[in-house]
């Protein structure tokens, strides 16, 4: 009997030893790119170093091309389209811009106009069409009222035979509210073409993950909008995006008041009530637009806007530090601050 136990133990020892040898950690290939006016981090877990390098270079080239094609104020294809709209003429649009205009129109409709890529004039009036941001003063109230009265909307646009025309010359396309999401979707598509199954693409703090970090999910920290650290974390795997719109990203201060870059299309002024909104979704272009729309909606109506846009996982932190979450978001969010902030779970 004791001989049998000894033999079993030897087998167990061999199995343990082999399993320990098998736990070789996959190499993380981490690359940072300064592209699209932001810092893009591409983290690839699997594949050899050469595959990761080739895929990352292709991502960088694609993002640089998108930056040129879709830039809202540096002279290029999109500014030429906007010039044609302003002068009441039609302009040729390629398949990519046609797709973005169609997606933008649909997302804008779902959000009840809170996400509106047609308000480029308003964003420019506030001075956010510059690489280094505006420094104030805020624009004249009469100029804001005059732009709002012209009511630029995506529904003013029509595309026939590859040509775009607008019923409203006040429409100016600005894809800033969802171009980053589209860029991240494109980056992930390229990584997949290179048979990379486990990766994160983080562009200026917004990200999409595929696969896992080896035996565990990817761990994502969500920045505290009012502090230096992380307020909460979520574990993500498979194929998920985490996007946050915050009032701390781009702003200027004038005479002691802070003016951030998320403009409410209804008032023409920076949206009030929210400090940050985090959205989880399977498509980055949707998550990006929804984070902006929910931020504009504010603490009273964000949950209805989330439902209308098909988002069931979202968190809003208001300007007083109160946290509002959908039930699905609350279930998977872990707070990293002690004590956790006051939380209100809202059923959309």
């Amino acid at each position, binding site marked *: 009997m004791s001989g049998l136990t000894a033999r079993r*133990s030897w087998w167990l020892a061999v199995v*343990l030893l082999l399993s320990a040898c098998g736990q070789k*950690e996959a190499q993380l290939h981490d690359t*940072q790119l300064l592209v699209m006016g932001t*810092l893009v*981090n591409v983290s690839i877990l699997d594949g050899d170093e050469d595959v990761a390098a080739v895929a990352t270079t292709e991502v960088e080239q694609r993002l640089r091309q998108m930056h040129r094609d879709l830039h809202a104020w540096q002279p290029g294809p999109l500014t030429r389209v906007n010039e044609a709209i302003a002068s009441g003429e039609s302009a040729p649009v390629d398949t990519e811009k046609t797709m973005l205009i169609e997606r933008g129109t649909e997302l804008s409709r779902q959000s009840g106009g809170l996400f509106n890529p047609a308000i480029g004039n308003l964003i420019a009036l506030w001075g956010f069409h510059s690489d280094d941001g505006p420094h104030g003063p805020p624009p004249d109230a009469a100029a804001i009222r005059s732009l709002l009265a012209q009511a630029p909307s995506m529904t003013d646009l029509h595309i026939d035979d590859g040509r775009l025309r607008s019923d409203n010359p006040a429409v100016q396309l600005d894809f800033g509210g969802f171009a980053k999401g589209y860029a991240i979707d494109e980056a992930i598509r390229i990584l997949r073409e290179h048979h990379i199954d486990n990766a994160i693409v983080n562009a200026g703090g917004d990200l999409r993950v595929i696969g896992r970090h080896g035996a565990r999910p990817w*761990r994502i920290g969500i*920045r505290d909008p009012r502090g230096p650290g992380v307020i909460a974390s979520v574990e993500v795997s498979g194929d998920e995006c*985490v996007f946050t719109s915050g009032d701390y990203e781009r702003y200027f201060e004038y005479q002691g008041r802070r003016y951030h870059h998320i403009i409410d299309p209804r008032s023409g002024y920076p949206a009030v009530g929210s400090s940050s909104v985090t959205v989880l979704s399977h498509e980055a272009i949707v998550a990006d637009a929804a984070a902006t729309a929910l931020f504009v909606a504010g603490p009273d109506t964000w949950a209805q806007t989330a439902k209308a846009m098909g988002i069931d996982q979202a968190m809003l932190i208001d300007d007083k530090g109160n946290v509002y979450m959908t039930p699905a978001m609350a279930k998977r969010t872990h707070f990293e601050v002690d004590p956790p902030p006051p939380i209100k779970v809202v059923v959309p």
Partner: protein
Amino acid sequence: MTQSAIPLKSIAGALRPTPGDILVALLTLVLLAGLYSHYWSGIGGEGERARIVSADGEVHLVALNEDRTLTVHGPLGDSVIEIHQGRVRFVESPCQGKQCIHAGWLHSAGSFAACLPNRISITVLGKNRHFDSINY
């Protein structure tokens, strides 16, 4: 006293550890120690070094356990980076927005800040990253 079905001597023999048992126990301890250091010792994920990349692609690797201040040249001018008590931050920058300075101290592995106008980035490196990516 209850009569035992198995003679006491035979039970004692079965309980005596064999060389295999001892090996299994030792390997289990080694495996546990390995798992602990792999999954838990990084909680908090303090960084050990920082990687500073400047506009010309030059990479500086600096230890965070030595307090120092360094000047990195970019297209707009000089950015000043401070390392103090295991943390790193931008303290001076020729850019207008100063968002790099607003980013404040960085200490956990994986965290980063960048001055986009002056094209300089700082990433904190460390073996154990508490988070794989930061959303903001």
